[in-house]
C-alpha cells in the first residue's frame, strides 16, 4: 500500500454535506437503482479521465463479478459492486474489495526480468522488453529445433486473455497445453457429462431441498449459489450438508453430518436405493428421458441405508428420511455437485452417482432443479494455426480414459515429463498458473521444472513459479487491462468485459500485447494469427449484435432477458450418445469402466495418523491472494485443524507449532484445536507455506498443502485425488 497516495483529504471534503439520501438502496429493483445512481450523481461520466467510474469485471477469482472501479486523480480508490450484475446479486466479496492491492502491491512484477542466480534463488535482473522477448523467442525456436514443437508445454489457467496464450500455443504447434481443470473439477465434468452430456447448474435460488457434500459454499464462494443458498424462496428451503468439517456452510445448514471422507457415494447409492425401492422416483420422466434405469434397479439392491451407514457413518434412518424428503421435494430438489472434485480416485463415479440420483427424481431442466447452462453466443475471432507435420499426440495421451485435449492432466503429464516418455518436454511457458502452489506433490513439480531447459512465466507477482523461472514477463492486472468480451454461461447467461481503469503501471503489458510481440518475432505466419487490436477483436466478437458493446460500456454487463429460461432441452436430444440421460453408461462399458457407479471404500490410514483434507476460506483464492495486503490482514497464516479429543490425547496446545509429516515431507505450522472437525482428519487451507521471498507478507508463514499432499489420481478424468494423504502431527 505504500505506493498508494493518501486519499483522506479529498474524502473528508464530502463529510457533513447536507444529506439527501436515497435510503434502502440495496433492496431496490435494478431499474430503480439505475435511476437512483443517475440522480445521486453517483456515477461520474467517463469523459473525465482523472476521475471516473469504470464498469469492469472482477478478476480476483473465477466468478467474474461486476465491478465499478472508482478512479480518483488517476488512482483506483475503491471497487464497488456493480448493481446491474445479476449473477453476483450486486455484491463484492472480501477478495473483490481487496483487488486494488493487486495493482498497488509492492510485490508486483514491474519489469521484464531475466534470471541471474540459480533457479529458485530469486535473483533476477531487469531487462528491456525487447531483450526479454527476444530471449523467449530464441529459446522457443531452439527448443523446437532440438525437441520438436511438442517439447514445450504451455501452462495456463482461466483468464479473459488466456485465449491468446492458448492461441499462441496452437500456432506454435505444441499439443501440450496444460490447464487447471485436472486440479479442480474435471472428474465432476466427466461424471455429469457422461450422464447428462453436460455439467448442469443447480438452480439454487428456486430449489426447496439442497444436499451438498463437500461443497463449502459459505467459504468457497460461487456466485450466485453462495448467496442463493441463504436467500431461497418460500421458507421451505432445506439444506443438508455433508463434510468432515463443521465449515461456515455447516453453520448455515439445517443438518450437518460429519461424513467419513471418501464415502459420499455410499450415501448417494443408499438414497437411490430408498428412492427406487419405495417408488419415489419420477416414473414418467425416467421412462421418457433416461436410459438404463432397468439396470440400475438390480445394481442398487445391495446398497441399503444400513449398508451405507456402516460406510459413511450417517445413521440409516437419517439416510432413509433424507432420501424421502429429497424425493418429496422433487423436482425442486438438487444434489449439488459442487465444483472442485479432486478428492478421491473414484471421484468420477461418485459424481456419476450424484447425477443419477438427480436424474431419477426428474429435476432435469426444471425450475429449482438441475439446469443445463445457457450461453449467449459470441462470434469467435477466426485464426488459422499453421499446420506442422509430425506433431505427436499430447504427452500424456491415453493416460486417462477421457482427457480434455486442451486441459490435459497435471498428474499424468508431470509423471511423463519426469520419465521423459514418450518424448522429452524441455520448455515451459506459463501464464497465470502457479503449479508450485496448486499442484499436489510440490517436490515432483520442482523436479519437473528443474529438468526444463527454459521456463518463461507471465504473471503479475513474484509467486513461487515465477521465482523458479528464467524469464519473467510482467502482465497488466485485470484493473489495467482491456479484455475481450467473455460469455459467462449458466442458468442466466451474461456477457462481460473489462475496461482499463488506469494505464498499466510500470512496464507491465496486457497478455495480448505480449503474445503479439512474441508472434511477431516468431515469423509472419504466426503473426498473422494475432493481426488485430483488442477493439477489432471485440467488434468481431459481437459483429452480429453491436448493441452489446453499448450495453457493456454503460452497465458493464449484457444479458438478453431478466429471467432465466427453463426447459430448453426438454424434448431435444442431449449431447450423450443416446441423446437421453444415461443412467447406464454404454460409453463407459465400452471402455471397460463400470457403467453404473460401483462403491469403492477408501483405504484407512495407518494407526495414529490423520487424513489430510484440504479446503478454502472465503478470503482467499487458491494460491493467488494470500500476499494481498487486505487479505493478509484478515488471515496471515494457515493452521492445521485437529479435533479437541485428539489434541488432548497428544497433549498439544492450541496455537502451538506442530510438525505435520506426510509420506512426502514435513511442514511446520500452527495448530488450531477445534471441535469442528472429525477426529480422524486434519485440515489445512490452501496458499501458504510459499517458497518465494518475493511474496514478502506471507513468506515464512504457515505450511504448504502442495508439499504435503501425495499425487493420487482419478483415472477416468485424470483429475488429481488430493484426499488420500495421511499425516502425523507432532509437537514441533
Amino acid at each position, binding site marked *: 500500500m505504500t505506493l498508494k497516495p493518501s486519499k483522506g483529504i479529498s474524502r473528508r471534503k464530502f463529510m457533513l454535506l447536507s444529506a439527501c439520501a436515497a435510503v434502502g438502496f440495496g433492496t431496490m429493483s435494478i431499474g430503480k437503482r439505475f435511476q437512483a445512481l443517475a440522480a445521486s450523481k453517483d456515477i461520474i461520466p467517463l469523459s473525465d479521465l482523472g476521475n471516473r467510474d469504470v464498469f469492469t469485471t472482477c478478476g480476483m477469482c473465477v466468478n467474474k463479478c461486476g465491478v465499478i472501479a472508482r478512479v480518483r486523480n488517476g488512482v483506483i480508490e475503491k471497487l464497488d459492486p456493480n448493481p446491474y450484475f445479476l449473477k453476483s446479486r450486486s455484491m463484492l466479496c472480501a477478495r473483490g474489495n481487496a483487488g486494488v492491492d493487486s495493482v498497488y502491491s509492492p510485490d508486483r512484477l514491474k519489469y521484464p526480468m531475466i534470471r541471474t542466480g540459480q533457479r529458485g534463488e530469486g535473483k533476477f535482473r531487469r531487462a528491456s522488453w525487447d531483450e526479454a522477448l527476444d530471449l523467449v523467442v530464441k529459446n522457443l525456436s531452439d527448443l523446437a529445433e532440438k525437441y520438436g514443437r511438442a517439447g514445450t508445454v504451455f501452462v495456463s489457467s482461466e483468464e479473459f486473455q488466456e485465449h491468446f496464450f492458448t492461441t499462441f500455443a496452437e500456432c506454435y504447434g505444441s499439443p501440450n497445453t496444460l*490447464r*487447471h481443470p485436472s486440479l479442480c473439477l474435471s472428474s465432476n465434468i466427466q461424471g455429469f457429462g457422461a450422464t447428462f452430456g453436460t*455439467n448442469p447448474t443447480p438452480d439454487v435460488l428456486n430449489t426447496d431441498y439442497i444436499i451438498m457434500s463437500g461443497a463449502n459454499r459459505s467459504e468457497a464462494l460461487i456466485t450466485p449459489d453462495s448467496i442463493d443458498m441463504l436467500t431461497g424462496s418460500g421458507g421451505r428451503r432445506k439444506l443438508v450438508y455433508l463434510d468432515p468439517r463443521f465449515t461456515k456452510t455447516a453453520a448455515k445448514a439445517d443438518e450437518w453430518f460429519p461424513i467419513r471422507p471418501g464415502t459420499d457415494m455410499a450415501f448417494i447409492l443408499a438414497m437411490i436405493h430408498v428412492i427406487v425401492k419405495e417408488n419415489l422416483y419420477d416414473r414418467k420422466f425416467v421412462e421418457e428421458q433416461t436410459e438404463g434405469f432397468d439396470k440400475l434397479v438390480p445394481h442398487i439392491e445391495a446398497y441399503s441405508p444400513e449398508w451405507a451407514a456402516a460406510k459413511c457413518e450417517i445413521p440409516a434412518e437419517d439416510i432413509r428420511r433424507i432420501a424421502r424428503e429429497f424425493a418429496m421435494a422433487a423436482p425442486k430438489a438438487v444434489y449439488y455437485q459442487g465444483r472442485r472434485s479432486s478428492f478421491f480416485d473414484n471421484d468420477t463415479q461418485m459424481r456419476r452417482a450424484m447425477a443419477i440420483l438427480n436424474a431419477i427424481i426428474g429435476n432435469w431442466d426444471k425450475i429449482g432443479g438441475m439446469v443445463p447452462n445457457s450461453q449467449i453466443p459470441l462470434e469467435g475471432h477466426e485464426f*488459422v494455426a499453421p499446420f506442422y507435420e509430425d506433431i505427436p499426440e499430447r504427452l500424456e495421451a491415453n493416460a486417462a480414459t477421457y482427457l480434455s485435449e486442451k486441459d490435459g492432466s497435471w498428474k499424468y503429464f508431470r509423471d511423463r515429463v519426469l520419465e521423459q516418455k514418450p518424448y522429452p518436454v524441455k520448455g515451459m511457458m506459463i501464464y497465470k498458473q502457479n503449479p508450485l502452489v496448486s499442484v499436489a506433490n510440490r517436490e515432483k513439480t520442482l523436479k519437473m521444472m528443474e529438468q526444463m531447459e527454459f521456463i518463461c512465466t507471465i504473471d503479475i507477482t513474484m509467486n513461487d513459479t515465477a521465482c523458479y523461472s528464467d524469464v519473467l514477463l510482467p502482465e497488466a492486472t485485470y484493473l489495467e487491462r482491456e479484455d475481450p468480451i467473455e460469455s459467462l454461461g449458466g442458468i442466466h447467461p451474461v456477457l462481460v468485459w473489462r475496461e482499463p481503469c488506469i494505464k498499466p503501471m510500470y512496464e507491465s503489458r496486457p497478455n495480448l500485447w505480449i503474445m503479439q510481440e512474441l508472434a511477431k518475432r516468431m515469423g509472419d505466419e504466426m503473426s498473422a494469427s494475432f493481426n488485430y487490436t483488442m477493439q477489432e477483436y471485440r467488434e468481431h466478437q459481437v459483429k452480429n449484435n453491436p448493441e452489446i458493446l453499448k450495453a457493456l460500456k454503460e452497465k458493464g454487463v449484457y444479458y438478453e432477458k431478466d429471467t432465466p429460461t427453463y426447459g430448453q432441452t426438454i424434448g431435444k436430444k442431449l449431447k450423450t450418445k443416446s441423446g437421453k440421460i444415461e443412467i447406464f453408461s454404454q460409453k463407459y462399458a465400452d471402455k471397460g469402466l463400470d457403467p453404473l457407479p460401483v462403491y469403492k471404500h477408501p483405504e484407512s490410514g495407518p494407526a495414529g495418523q490423520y487424513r489430510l483434507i484440504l479446503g478454502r476460506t472465503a478470503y482467499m483464492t487458491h494460491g493467488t491472494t494470500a500476499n494481498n495486503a487486505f487479505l493478509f490482514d484478515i488471515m496471515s497464516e494457515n493452521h492445521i485443524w485437529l479435533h479437541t479429543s485428539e489434541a488432548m490425547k497428544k497433549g498439544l496446545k492450541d496455537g502451538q507449532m506442530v510438525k505435520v509429516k506426510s509420506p512426502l515431507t514435513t511442514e511446520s505450522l500452527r495448530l488450531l484445536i477445534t471441535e469442528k472437525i472429525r477426529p480422524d482428519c486434519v485440515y489445512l487451507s490452501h496458499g501458504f507455506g510459499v517458497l518465494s521471498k518475493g511474496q514478502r507478507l506471507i513468506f515464512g508463514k504457515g505450511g504448504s498443502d502442495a508439499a504435503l499432499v501425495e499425487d493420487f489420481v482419478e483415472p477416468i478424468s485424470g483429475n488429481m485425488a488430493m484426499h488420500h494423504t495421511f499425516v502425523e502431527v507432532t509437537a514441533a
Partner: protein
Amino acid sequence: MYRNGLLMSVLVVVCMSVGLALAADGGNSKKGKYLWKTNCKTCHVEGGGASVLSPSSKTTKEWTEFFDKNTNPVIMEKCKKFPEANLKDIRTYMIEHAKDSDQPETCG
C-alpha cells in the same frame, strides 16, 4: 448381475462401431482442423453463403453418415476437390469434436 447385459451391449456396440472405428482411424485431426478452417469454414459461417457448420453441429453418428453415406450431389461435388487422405483428416476432426464426442467440457 449386469455382467450378461454388459457383455451383450459390448458386443452390440463393437459390431456397430467396427466400421466407424476403421473409417475414423488414420486421419490426422489436427490437419483436418487446418484443412477445415482454410477450405470449408469460410463459407460455413453466418453470411458465408453455406449453412453455418462446426464440428459440434452434428453427432458422431451424423458425421459418420455425412461422410460415408452422403448422396447430396452438391456436397459430393465440393468434397471431390480434396484428395482422399485430406477428406479423411477432416472427417476425423469433425468426428472427434462432434456434439456427443468424448471430448469433455472445459472450464473458463
